[in-house]
């Protein structure tokens, strides 16, 4: 005979009761096949492997109490049913379990991609078998988010397609729901209405409604125990009804004939045996085996005794636990996420590296895109000039050495102004605006030393210049430095700085100055270098790039040493830097 167990989540304890009854009174029934879905498949497998019922009972109760202990019950993120099941199965099933159950155990699975039912009955290894059982017990969102794979295909709970696989006409169906099954509870509240979900007939009664809710949310140990007892009683009733209970002597006889005889024949054989009759009478008064009841009783006691349990049974405490949900849940979720992450790390290293790489690529692409679209630049233009002036008096006896030093240091922050949008625009120049801009930002940091009469500020000498002077200088001289910048009106300004100290033109210098200047020694390198750099600026086609550079001139480049005529007044002989706007 074949037995099929219905999938039923935590109601699987009912199957334990049924199995213990079968083991006790009809051990000869199980030479043939078993089938099941979800918890039923596990029950069917354990039955074939002759797993210790006591251990299974304590496992079920342990898992149930674990699920009950947490907020949200089994839906608490830290409750990982698949993991618990795997470790439990690994422990309970013998190493050669796949050999025992091969061809006998039929596990009902639901293939995820087409939601069809698949029945698996051949297993290559213990791991293979456990994986099939876990697939069969996978309820989306309850067990996890992604269905597990079995031989490369994703499967979910067999209960979605065929919760009670029937192998042939003589299959004994076992279901913890009151309905049309061979072994099932008979509810006191019968109802004419039935539904048939995934091949499991379920009567629409109050008890069944309650049982349905208990598939995922396990009840108290007391009720679990009663369900187990119910399974035992129902199985016993079935055996009695079908005259399947026999004494040990008859059992041994029938088992030898099992191959050729049908069950019907062995039944008739049973009826005449007085020992069998006695056995049947004894069975009437029997209940669950000791191993199972003791564990159940222990669980009930531990759930009922003690002050803590008394407090937790109180209605107020359940209210508190509901109210505390918003505080407890995030912690649990974080905890669970962390645990799962830790679990997944070894599997994910390869993926993770790839993920990081693609993330970096993405960020780079985003930045590039932003740069293309929004041309916003931060540019600072700073220039430091240090001008040192030495004055020597040839008067005997008087060491009247005056040393002047001009240090200027100015900074343009181009962020203050807008930017040119095109090259041509950038080249249109506006002198006055640039002048304003420069003046505005021109900050002489310090004049390090002021000896003697001191110096006139540079800006003053600037004002003394006439337009003719400017024209003269610009037409004959090369700029020491030229630079472009942008003013507040989005126009590029070109500034050229001319070193007029050594300019040998009459426009600037008095004749005697020119004579003296001829004696001065300059480092020609400076001029050349600066000229070049201004050239570079113009050549650089993209104004953006140019602005991006922070142009900083080393002060030493501009430090010039001069010997100035002793007679010359400071104002006359200062090294003048003329700034022209063109």
């Amino acid at each position: 005979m074949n037995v099929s167990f219905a999938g039923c989540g935590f109601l699987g304890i009912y199957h334990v009761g049924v199995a213990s009854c079968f083991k006790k009174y009809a051990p000869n029934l199980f030479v043939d096949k078993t089938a099941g879905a979800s918890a039923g498949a596990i029950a069917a497998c354990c039955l074939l492997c002759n797993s210790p019922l006591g251990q299974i009972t304590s496992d079920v109760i342990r898992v149930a109490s674990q699920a009950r202990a947490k907020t949200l019950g089994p839906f608490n993120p830290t409750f990982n049913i698949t993991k618990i099941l795997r470790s439990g199965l690994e422990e309970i099933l013998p190493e050669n379990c796949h050999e025992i159950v091969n061809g006998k155990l039929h596990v009902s699975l639901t293939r995820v991609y087409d939601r069809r039912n698949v029945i698996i009955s051949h297993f290559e290894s213990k791991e293979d078998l456990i994986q099939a059982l876990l697939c069969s017990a996978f309820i989306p969102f309850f067990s996890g988010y992604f269905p597990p794979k079995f031989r490369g295909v994703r499967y979910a709970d067999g209960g979605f397609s065929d919760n009670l696989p029937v192998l042939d006409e003589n299959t004994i169906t076992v279901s913890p729901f009151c309905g049309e099954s061979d072994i099932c509870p008979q509810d006191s509240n019968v109802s004419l209405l039935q539904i048939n979900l995934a091949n499991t007939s379920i009567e629409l009664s109050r008890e069944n409604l309650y049982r349905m809710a208990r598939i995922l949310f396990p009840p108290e140990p007391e009720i679990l125990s009663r369900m187990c007892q119910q399974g035992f009683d129902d199985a016993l009733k079935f055996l009695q009804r079908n005259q399947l209970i026999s004494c040990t002597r008859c059992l041994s006889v029938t088992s030898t004939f099992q191959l050729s005889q049908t069950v019907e024949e062995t039944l008739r054989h049973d009826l005449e045996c007085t020992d069998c009759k006695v056995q049947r009478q004894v069975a009437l008064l029997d209940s669950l085996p000791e191993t199972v009841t003791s564990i159940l009783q222990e669980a009930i006691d531990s759930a009922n005794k003690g002050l803590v349990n008394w407090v937790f049974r109180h209605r107020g405490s359940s209210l508190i636990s509901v109210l505390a949900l918003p505080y407890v849940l995030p912690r649990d979720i974080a905890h669970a996420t962390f645990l799962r992450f830790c679990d997944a790390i070894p599997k994910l290293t390869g993926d993770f590296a790839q993920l990081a790489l693609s993330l970096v690529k993405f960020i780079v692409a985003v930045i590039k895109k932003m740069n293309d679209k929004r041309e916003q630049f931060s540019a600072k233009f700073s220039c430091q000039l240090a001008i040192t002036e030495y004055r020597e008096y040839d008067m005997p006896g008087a060491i009247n050495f005056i040393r002047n030093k001009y240090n200027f240091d100015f900074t343009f922050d181009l962020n203050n102004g807008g930017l040119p949008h095109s090259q041509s625009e950038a080249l249109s120049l506006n002198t006055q605006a640039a002048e304003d801009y420069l003046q505005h930002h021109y900050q002489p940091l310090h004049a390090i030393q002021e000896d003697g009469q001191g110096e006139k500020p540079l800006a003053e000498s600037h004002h003394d210049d006439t337009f003719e002077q400017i024209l003269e200088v610009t037409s004959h001289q090369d700029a020491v430095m030229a630079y472009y910048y942008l003013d507040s009106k989005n126009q590029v300004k070109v500034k050229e700085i001319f070193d007029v100290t050594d300019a040998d033109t009459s426009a600037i210098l008095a004749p005697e100055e020119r004579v003296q200047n001829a004696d001065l020694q300059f480092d020609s390198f400076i001029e050349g270098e600066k000229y070049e750099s201004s050239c570079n600026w113009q050549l650089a086609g993209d104004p953006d790039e140019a602005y991006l550079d922070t142009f900083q001139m080393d002060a030493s480049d501009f430090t010039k040493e001069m010997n100035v005529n002793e007679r010359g007044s400071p104002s006359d002989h200062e090294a003048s830097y003329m700034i022209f706007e063109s």
Partner: protein
Amino acid sequence: MAALRSAEEKLLAVVKSRLRGRYIDIGNSVGNKKCKIWTLSLNEASKCLPLVMLHGFASGVGLWCMNFDAFASTRPVHAFDILGFGRSSRPSFSSDALEAEGQMVQSIEDWRKAMGLEEFILMGHSMGGFLAASYAIRFPDRVKHLILADPWGFPEKPINQEKFNIPTWVRVIATVLQPFNPLWGVRAAGPLGPKLVAKIRPDLIKKFSSIIPNSDEVIPNYIYHCNAQTPSGESAFHAMMAQFGWAKYPMINRIDSLNKEIPITLIYGSRSWVDQTPGNEIKAKRPDSYVEIQAINGAGHHVYADRPENFNHLVNIACDSTEHGSLFTTN
């Protein structure tokens, strides 16, 4: 009604014997309204004791389609839609349990008169079994053998035998649904009704799939249209019920008043939700009468469709032995 007719025709197309379907006028005994009862007759020419079949709750004559041929091979067979169900009229019944039951039984008697039948074998399934027993008590002379297939309404409601404390929310749902007719959900589904029936009772389709070509469409359609109209029979049934599923006046307490001469055969489905203990009780209560109890292995509540061969065989044996007067020897 037209939809029901076409659905029924599709179902009955599998019956090989010649079928005659007609409306029988039974007058206005119920609800002061002219009532008609849809009747199917087979093998009317036969002189044997006729068999009258009463269907169960929420179904109709069509569901007997797998049994007609076997029964009609030897004797005349009459099957009709009980008043308030299927294609028969749907008058409003009393809301009192006993009165409603009386009206139903009276309608069967009126039908018998209109049909001109004197004696017959009465077979009822589920609710039909309850009515058949009630009819046999009231009109014992007409019934030669009472065959009850998984009959409803025999056991008494046990006093508070709940296995566990039913939580409040379940009680609330049950209490809210209590006043509704049992099949309100199917009617509420409207045009989706057949789909709903197919969804919640795929087992019914499966039972018939071996002989009906496109049973996944025909069966839900038939069941839906049987119950989509005014639920007058359903209301009467609801009135006869005490709480979900129990009879207000269980037949087990009234079976004593059944004539001892009438033999009873009870055929249960081994998987059915129907409690089989009343069968044994009846047997104990009627030591001098013929009471035969059969359980068909692997069959559910719809015994006649789950294991049609076994069922037909058992019924035929019962009918034949009644006819030949050999019943008491087999007991």
